[in-house]
């Protein structure tokens, strides 16, 4: 009998609708108004790679040990270096990083013994060409420069 009455008065449907009405004025709004409001990514976010430079003298921190290139599952890092006659140390010549094939696993970052290569919080890395996705040493040191439109 109660089952029939519940069926006639659509109790089950109103029960569900009540939940919907309870959520009419949500406390937290999760939608991000993207170009106007940039998402705050976490501190450990693995985004665009960066080759760190020493802030004091502008020299690269990279010691050309090639460990990142060995650690990379996709083999997308190419490091070339030359042994300097003066200091007898390896000096970095080129460093290319193909972001189009990168899956941001962070293994290169883990492998780096001097924290020169780092995955940063920048995530806007789009480019109009495929070649633009292959970052050279200069691009890696400067980081991506996304166009920002004022809203």
């Amino acid at each position: 009998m109660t089952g029939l009455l519940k069926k006639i008065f659509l109790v089950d449907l109103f029960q569900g609708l009540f939940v919907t009405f309870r959520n009419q004025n949500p406390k937290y709004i999760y939608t991000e108004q993207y170009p106007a409001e940039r998402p705050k990514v976490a501190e450990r976010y693995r985004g665009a790679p960066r080759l760190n430079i020493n802030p004091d003298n502008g020299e690269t921190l990279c010691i050309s040990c090639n460990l990142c290139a060995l650690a990379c599952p996709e083999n997308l890092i190419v490091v070339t270096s030359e042994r300097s006659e003066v200091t007898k140390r390896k000096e970095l010549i080129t460093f290319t990083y193909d972001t189009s094939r990168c899956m941001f696993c962070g293994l290169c970052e883990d492998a780096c013994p001097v924290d020169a290569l780092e995955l940063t919080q920048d995530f806007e890395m789009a480019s109009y060409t495929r070649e633009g996705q292959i970052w050279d040493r200069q691009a890696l040191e400067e980081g991506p420069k996304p166009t920002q439109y004022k809203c």
Partner: protein
Amino acid sequence: MPDSTFLDSTELVLNMGPQHPSTHGVLRVILKLDGEKVLGTDCIIGYLHRGVEKIAENRTYAQFNPYVDRMDYVAAVSNGLGYCLAVEKLLNVEAPPRAQAIRVILTELNRIASHLLWLGTHALDIGAITPVFYCLREREEALKIFEKYCGARLTTHAFRIGGLLYETYDGFEQEIRDFCKMFIPKVDEYEELLTNNRIWVGRLKDVGILSADECKEFGVTGPVLRAAGVKWDLRKAQPYSGYEKYDFDIPTRQNGDTYDRYMVRMEEMRQSVRIMEQAVEGIPEGPIMGKVGKVIKPAIGEAYVSIEAPKGELGYYIVSDGSTQPYRCRVRPPSFVNLQALDRMIRGGLIADVVAVIGTLDIVLGEVDR
């Protein structure tokens, strides 16, 4: 399947997919129909085949770790756990207790995230649009914890062979506790929306029945098996990563229809919260990385480890030839095996039930095709 000519009959062969939104990816189902009735199905898979098992043979053990996240991409943490456990078994090391506790918390959080996505999309397929918004809202909280912990939301690469790379961030425990506290009322909310709803019940009850014997015949595992009444959960049957320390129940139901599978998954989310609550209270202090060398080079041998992923038994079989790369890495994906029962479940049903049954199997095509 469409073997004979169908010109002289009323049979109609219909392609569902690979672009159909309700097949949850690139699954193509060839349906043989008589009016509304499904006479038979034929699944065509492979549209998302990337050769992950072959890739493993050309990568070192550590390098292959991010690839496993890309198989079942809604439950990447579980995939990583299975792979890490398999390699750890090969190396004969064990992750330290602290790492194990954090692994349990994150995999259970991932189970909730996976079930939430399943619930949202399953309800959306049936026609209930509201749950998907609520589910994704809660899933967002889980993904935020993943992002804070390991820097990625979906393809997390959270675990490393031998333990963990990342120490927990400040406030990790509190955030897990807050999530647990927030989440249980939300599950009740979903149940209020759906469980008694007459359309939901009408669409799901007695649809896609798979009995316990049929489940065993097909090798189906996970919530699909438990909904048929078999109390089988690898977390209890072969405890791994310290699951034996936690107190939780295995939810089961008897009928093995789509509605029961829904009920089992809802209850599983509550049990996951229970495990997380226990685990977060007792995270031991200590190191997070076991004794694993920089270069992972297991001795010649083989190992099979299976874990209870959100979708069922996820197994990794790795053969080592003594080098730094696996000789063979075979994955036993739950989605692929569960998908094989699709024909049995919808044969004789109605065409509208096909969507419900594909939804209830909770397949991820990245894992089916690998």
